[in-house]
């Protein structure tokens, strides 16, 4: 066995893993803080990546779609500034979505929630296609990506961008765990996701808490989209496929566990690259299958996922 090649494959898989993990993390944040799932998470993230793209390119109607040209500031932004703008925009969109579409439902059935977020997915996707077209667009990377921009470790190349994405992902994860475990706000998030009415009774304002949860998750989704837009190319459906893997990652790890999202993303990303490479009868097309089979098996044994807490059903 060629260990350098194996290491190289692992390094390559790490980049995708980071992307899956970060979107999974966004899903987990929403689930953890609101008990809901947002099927439009990927689409909302892509939308904000387009915002970053618009900020980067400055006022060029050809790129930005006629309707939006007027909104764009005169000077192109630098990459970090544009990403920051996208994240802020993502937070606003997330908060607005919660306020306008989710809160008025008043905790209706799961199906209603699925309807709303899928409706949002469709609408956002097609509006993006309308404004920006469906052609892929180049989105610059925040990390150096050219030839030679990598570490050499035991003969395998580890790109700077992979390291960078993981550094960002891990620091966000640490912040998130600190927030949920050790702050008043984190406790409030958890209380609301368990029982909104009891949370009101201890003085937690449920509505705003949910809104912050959505803002947080959408902001994080925006970050994930901007970091991945360079490698998957920016187009309206770019997160659709990623979203399926992120779902799988989140389910695998346990929907309410940030740590689980990370591990789930790693498992999905690695198996996607490594299994087709070493298992002869599984071609690249089938590469998602092992991950999904793993997901089903884990759900069979532990319906709450690897790290998820089992819901305590009251009788």
């Amino acid at each position: 066995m060629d260990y350098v090649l194996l290491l190289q494959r692992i390094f390559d898989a790490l980049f995708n893993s980071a992307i899956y993990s970060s979107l999974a993390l966004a899903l987990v944040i929403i689930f953890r803080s609101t008990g809901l799932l947002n099927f439009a998470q990927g689409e909302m993230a892509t939308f904000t990546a387009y915002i970053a793209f618009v900020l980067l390119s400055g006022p060029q109607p050809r790129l930005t779609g006629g309707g939006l040209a007027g909104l764009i500031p005169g000077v192109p932004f630098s990459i970090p500034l544009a990403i920051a703008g996208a994240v802020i925009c993502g937070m606003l969109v997330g908060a607005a979505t919660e306020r306008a579409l989710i809160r008025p439902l008043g905790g209706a059935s799961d199906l209603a929630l699925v309807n709303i977020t899928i409706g949002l997915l469709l609408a956002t996707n097609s509006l993006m296609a309308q404004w920006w077209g469906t052609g892929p667009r180049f989105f610059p990377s925040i990390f150096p990506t050219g030839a030679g921009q990598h570490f050499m470790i035991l003969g395998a190349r580890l790109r700077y961008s992979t390291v960078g994405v993981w550094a960002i992902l891990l620091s966000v994860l640490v912040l998130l765990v600190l927030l949920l475990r050790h702050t008043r706000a984190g406790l409030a998030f958890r209380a609301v996701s368990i029982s909104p009415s009891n949370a009101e009774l201890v003085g937690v304002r449920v509505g705003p808490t949910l809104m912050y949860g959505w803002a947080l998750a959408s902001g994080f989704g925006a970050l994930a989209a901007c970091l991945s837009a360079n490698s998957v190319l920016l187009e309206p459906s770019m997160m659709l496929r990623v979203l399926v893997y992120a779902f799988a990652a989140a389910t695998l790890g346990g929907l309410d566990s940030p740590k689980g999202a990370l591990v789930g993303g790693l498992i999905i990303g690695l198996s996607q690259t490594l299994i087709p490479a070493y298992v002869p009868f599984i071609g690249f097309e089938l590469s998602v299958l092992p991950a999904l089979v793993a997901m089903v098996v884990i759900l069979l044994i532990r319906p709450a996922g690897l790290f998820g807490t089992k819901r305590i059903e009251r009788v």
Partner: protein
Amino acid sequence: MSEPLVVVAKDSAEHKRWKYVQWLYLAGFLVLAPLVLEPFEIGKMNRALIMSVAILAVNLVVGFNGMLALGHSAFMGIGAFVTASMVQDENWDYWQVLPVVLIVGFIMGVVIGLPALRVKGLYLALVTIAQAAVFPTLVNIDELGIAARTGGPNGKGVSEEVIAPGYLEWLPGVDGARGGSAYRYWIIILMLGITLLVITNYLRSRPGRAVLAIRDNEAGAAVYGVNLPIVKTMNFAISASLGSLAGLMWCLDKGFVAGQDFTFLLAIDLIIGLVLGGVGTIQGSIVGGLFVVWVNDLTKRISIPLGLYTLNGDGPLAKAIFGLILILFTFFAPGGIVSLARMVQSKLIKVVPLTPAGDPIQPISSFDPGMESKRADSALKLAIVPPVLLAVGWLLMNVDSLIVGVFAFGLRMTILLAPVAMLVGSNELKAHADGNRADSVQGTANMARLLGAAGTLFVIVYALQRFVVNY
């Protein structure tokens, strides 16, 4: 119309008569459709009815069992590919493939349902959406001879079109230009009819009631001795089997299947149809199928003249409008079109339930509005509006048949309300003869009866004429 136009006791002779009228409408709609519609529109109708079967399959799990399983596009795909492969490669007949497809669907349902149904709520939605998302890539697998059977990325065509054998050419519409699609229309109607019969009986049976009990209260159902995993899995498998049947119909109608036809966008279409029609009602599934295809079609058509972006004729606007519709319905009409239709129906006709002894719980005569009756006025409106819509439909059709074709057909079909106006008109005249109505009612009621009769006559003559033209 604040008061219903007609009040009948449940199961009384008059109630039955109104039921027959409703059935007559339905039959009229079904028979007229292949006669009146252009061939390409019949093709859409076929698509819609196939969607209806698939939506019914989703409804069985989501609406009647309360399980959020949303990946039925995959079962449709399985049915479609099995059919295409057997018919094209093995030269089987469709009716020979039918049992195979049903069984394969059922087995797939058990295989997927057994693990998937262990998880609940949104988790299940996740798992099943993943199932829908992977399916299109699975048909491209080179190993195990799968790609050879499915045609891989190129899809699989059935070279022989399904056309009517000589002894069935008497079917309405099956002749001349619209022959093939109209014949397939009748096959689809037949399959849909049988499906409806089977499913309604299934839901009334013991296992069917257990399925409903689980939806209403899972823990409670378990306490009453319902075996949850078995009932849920069986129901899921039946639903999967039905989804595969829709796939077979798809292949039969289109003669071509490809992985891209069965993406998770199709799964989303099914959900939209479900919500649009009405979750948890059989009629809702049928209506949902019709609307999903028609709205999709309509938005595509307006995208082009409005200069909106389209890709392969599938305008993004269509998806945006679907998204909007989904959100609006969830907020404002969670019961779907069926519940809206029931609201309208309750304005037209009120059915008074019976006491256990068999009498109406409130005497029918107590609903009689007496001298103040406005029923004749309402009946007159009902007699006037449909012809106007008919004319509007006609005009729209002639102005730009592309934009409004099917929509205009819908407008024109309101003429089927004419008999209601006629019957209410004569009811009022009878009441007047009995001295229960003011004299001023007489003229209006006469007018309503006359116009209603004219509309009815028009429908009959028109249908006859289409028959004559076609034979």
